[in-house]
């Protein structure tokens, strides 16, 4: 591997907006003050399932200070768009409500307190309908119908290879059922928007979103406005993790309230609303059947799953299909069959969450791998290495793996954790591992027939640049990574870069932050734009000093001859200024579209992700057998990210992902009873706090992706994905009980320990 030849890439640099964030000057949506703003509030359904017979807002509208009210009559026919033909969530209820929290009506008023008072004056007549909460119950014939088409929103079944023959050829077959829970994102800033439909018919929406350009497309197509009349702007975003992909009803509701009042209307979810009507991680039920040869070769994987979709479609179908393709990823199983139902229930609907289904299926696959290893008398590490994915491998779908450092991840993570020494030592301490294979640069065809990003760079007279990208920094650090790419290409320091992001009016196209794609896709676009500026800069410099541009390089704001790196021949600013005065200012445009092919044919598997990211995590735990409490003592996470553009920020992604995964493994659970969320606050919905965290050793494995910028690929999602399985496997190693449902609570461990004890007494 090439030694470090870079000046900015690979350096532990602070994020660009650090000083704003530590000094309290960074602005977030709640900090924006638009003159004339009204405050919107939403009336929500108290019933999990009911017919809406009458909504009367007239008394509310007569309250002094109330400026407008809207109901489902105003937004009739609109469905929240996720670019799917199955979209069916009205922003405000039309005839029926389907979960507790479903939007029924909304008001805009001079103050929040007036708006809240007005909600009490809205009269709604409901006729309660019988609800159904369990997806398996909802699938039964004769179950209450939540939507006209029935309760199964989607069914899909497919097979690659020959599953039945492969199962017959197997020496052992393992069958297990796993269940996962709803996890809430708990970004500290809740979702919010300010919509302003002005007198000229232009709609400006300030919003917490992780994809501005697709959001503009959603709003313009939904509202029938030309793209040029819709502007989407973000401030800093207080955490996202998938929750601000796509829109919530509030953007549409605020727009209609603004249309009526011609004033900006601001609606920001309370934390309670975020829990009860925000879109959490989909709970799933997974039956997994795996066929193995005696020597540990995996032959067949058959997965049957049911996704609890909640009351409406959002990303439930896409997440389920994503789980389907992820069944073909890890350990390169040659024969895979998948069968899934996405089922409506009278509960809040789910949405995108870091990992997009991979956390659920990886919990099942990797928990079962440990069971397989023990049955075969193999070490889990050896079983994984036996089946490890490798560069050049084709998955059974036909998708090609390019760079792959999974073997190195397994070896380095287990070595750092002291795997052999700590394994199976008893005394209620245990160690467990799990791995991940995930898309490393998004995927084509999710939000269009492309996977693209575009960047513009304008070099100013003084050699500084303005860099416009449609990518979105939600706190994960993409702005810093993109600036590092430009700085490296142009030989300028980071402080010479003005990043322009978060505004559809001033930035070029990009699909935004999802699928761990920005470092790779947006990074490549910025690299191309910077390269264009660099080539012109060198060409112009060559003319000035009568030299072949090939003999020149850019470094430290200067231009040097390659033959003499001690003495610069010109400053970059000098050339930039000369170009400006000649009427040809320096400018670069980069467009990058993932070259993996036009879309994915689910049957032939043609296409597929341009690259994959990998990782292995090892958890060490201590279980108290009297209380069932689990303490995670140590953690090692080795992740193949191609090339670390910024190792400090990469570690931050790993550490943050692992801790979110720890919460998912051990206690996070959006508890619902009869459709009512019982823990809609951060007191009762517990997320990890500072005393929960173990020591984490992050290992960055650099497999040098052939297509990624400087070899980089995505790291945003992978760190949360294998954590729950690593912890579950460590618990098994510690006390010998296998918990197959998340979260792994003390109650479940105690119950399993008791059952184990009774079992051994019988023997």
């Amino acid at each position, binding site marked *: 591997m090439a030694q470090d030849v870079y000046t900015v890439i690979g350096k532990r640099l602070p994020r660009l907006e650090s000083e704003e964030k530590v000094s309290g000057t960074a602005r977030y949506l709640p900090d924006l003050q638009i003159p004339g703003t009204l405050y919107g509030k939403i009336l929500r359904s108290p019933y999990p399932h009911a017919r809406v017979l009458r909504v009367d807002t007239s008394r509310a509208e007569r309250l002094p200070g109330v400026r407008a009210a809207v109901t489902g009559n105003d937004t009739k026919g609109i469905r929240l768009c996720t670019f799917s033909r199955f979209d069916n969530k009205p922003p405000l209820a039309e005839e029926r409500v389907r979960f507790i929290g479903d939007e029924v009506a909304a008001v805009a008023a001079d103050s929040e307190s007036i708006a809240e008072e007005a909600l009490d004056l809205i009269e709604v007549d409901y006729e309660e309908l019988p609800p159904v909460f369990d997806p398996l119950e909802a699938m039964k014939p004769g179950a209450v119908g939540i939507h006209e088409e029935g309760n199964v929103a989607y069914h899909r079944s497919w097979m690659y290879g020959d599953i039945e023959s492969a199962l017959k050829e197997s020496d052992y077959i393992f069958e297990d059922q796993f269940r996962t829970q709803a996890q809430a994102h708990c970004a500290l800033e809740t979702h919010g928007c300010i919509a302003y439909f002005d007198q000229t018919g232009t709609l400006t929406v300030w919003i917490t979103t992780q994809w501005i350009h697709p959001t503009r497309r959603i709003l313009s197509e939904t509202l029938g406005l030309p793209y040029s009349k819709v502007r989407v702007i973000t401030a800093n975003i207080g955490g996202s993790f998938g929750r601000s992909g796509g829109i919530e009803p509030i953007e549409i509701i605020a727009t209609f309230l603004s249309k009526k009042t011609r004033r900006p209307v601001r609606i920001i979810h309370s934390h309670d609303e975020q829990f009860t009507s925000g879109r959490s991680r989909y709970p799933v039920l997974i039956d997994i059947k795996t066929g193995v040869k005696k020597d540990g070769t995996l032959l067949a994987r058959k997965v049957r799953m049911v996704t609890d979709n909640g009351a409406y479609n959002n990303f439930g179908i896409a997440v389920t299909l994503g789980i389907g393709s992820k069944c073909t990823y890890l350990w390169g199983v040659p024969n895979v069959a998948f069968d899934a139902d996405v089922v409506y229930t009278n509960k809040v609907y789910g949405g995108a969450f870091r990992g997009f289904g991979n956390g659920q299926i990886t919990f099942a696959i990797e928990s079962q791998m440990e069971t397989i290893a023990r049955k075969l008398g193999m070490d889990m590490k050896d079983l994984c290495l036996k089946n490890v994915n490798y560069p050049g491998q084709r998955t059974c779908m036909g998708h090609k793996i390019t760079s792959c450092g999974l073997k190195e991840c397994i070896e380095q993570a287990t070595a750092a954790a002291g795997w052999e020494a700590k394994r199976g030592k008893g005394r209620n301490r245990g160690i467990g591992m799990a791995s991940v294979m995930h898309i490393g640069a998004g995927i084509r065809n999710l939000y269009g027939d492309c996977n693209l990003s575009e960047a513009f760079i304008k070099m100013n007279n003084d050699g500084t640049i303005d860099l416009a990208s449609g990518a979105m920094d939600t706190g994960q650090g993409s702005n810093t990574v993109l600036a590092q790419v430009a700085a490296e290409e142009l030989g300028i320091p980071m402080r010479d870069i003005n990043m322009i992001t978060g505004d559809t009016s001033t930035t070029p196209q990009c699909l935004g932050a999802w699928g761990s794609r920005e470092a790779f896709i947006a990074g490549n676009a910025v690299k191309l734009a910077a390269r264009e500026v660099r080539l012109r800069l060198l060409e112009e410099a060559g003319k000035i000093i009568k030299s072949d541009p090939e003999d020149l390089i850019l470094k430290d704001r200067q231009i040097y001859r390659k033959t003499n790196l001690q003495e610069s021949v010109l400053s970059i600013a000098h050339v930039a200024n000369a170009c400006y005065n000649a009427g040809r200012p320096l400018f670069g445009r980069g467009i990058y579209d993932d070259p993996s092919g036009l879309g994915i044919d689910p049957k032939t598997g043609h296409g597929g992700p341009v690259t994959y990211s990998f990782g292995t995590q090892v958890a060490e735990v201590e279980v108290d057998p009297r209380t069932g409490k689990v303490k995670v003592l140590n953690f090692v996470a080795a992740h193949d990210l191609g090339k670390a553009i910024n190792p400090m920020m990469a570690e931050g992604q790993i550490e943050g992902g692992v801790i979110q995964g720890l919460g998912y493994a051990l206690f996070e659970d959006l508890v619902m009873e009869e459709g009512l969320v019982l823990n809609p606050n951060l007191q009762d919905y517990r997320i990890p706090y500072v*005393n929960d965290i173990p020591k984490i050793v992050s290992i960055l494995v650099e497999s040098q992706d052939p297509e990624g910028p400087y070899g980089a690929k995505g790291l945003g999602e992978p760190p949360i994905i294998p954590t729950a399985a690593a912890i579950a496997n460590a618990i098994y190693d510690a006390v010998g009980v296998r918990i197959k449902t998340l979260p792994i609570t003390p109650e479940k461990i105690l119950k399993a320990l008791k059952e184990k004890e009774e079992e051994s007494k019988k023997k």
Partner: protein
Amino acid sequence: MGKTREGIMKHELKLKVNGQDYTLLIEPNRTLLEVIREDLGLLGTKLGCGGGECGACTVILNSEAVKSCIMLALDARNQEIWTIEGLGQTGELHPLQRAFVEYGAIQCGYCTSGMIMASKALLDENPQPSEQEIKDALAGNLCRCTGYLKILEAISSVANKMERK
């Protein structure tokens, strides 16, 4: 004294924020956070959960870290308050702010003001805390992005550099 539109009696509130004296007329049901953000325009202090659970609204009141979202503003009458804007007023970042930058202890930044104020209150009181003392001081401040490790490293680095009082 005056009345709001809704007819609630306003009360006089004198307090000192970041070294500046203020005299305000406010309704008795308003929180300290609302007054800091809306009346004083100091937007660096954040509204997180609004229930005292997440710590994004942490400010220092008479050298103690408090959650301004669950404190009535009138209870801060005649008290001295420091917000994030009060740090590094000289144009230089406070050592804690600099450490958060250098150690990468920031991601989305929404918890950052509260984290820094909570750790400042700790270091003002106890300049060389143990790791557990730092954790205990941050036990009321949630962060969903970083996993806390880099925040702890940043605070420890400042503590180690400080002279024992």
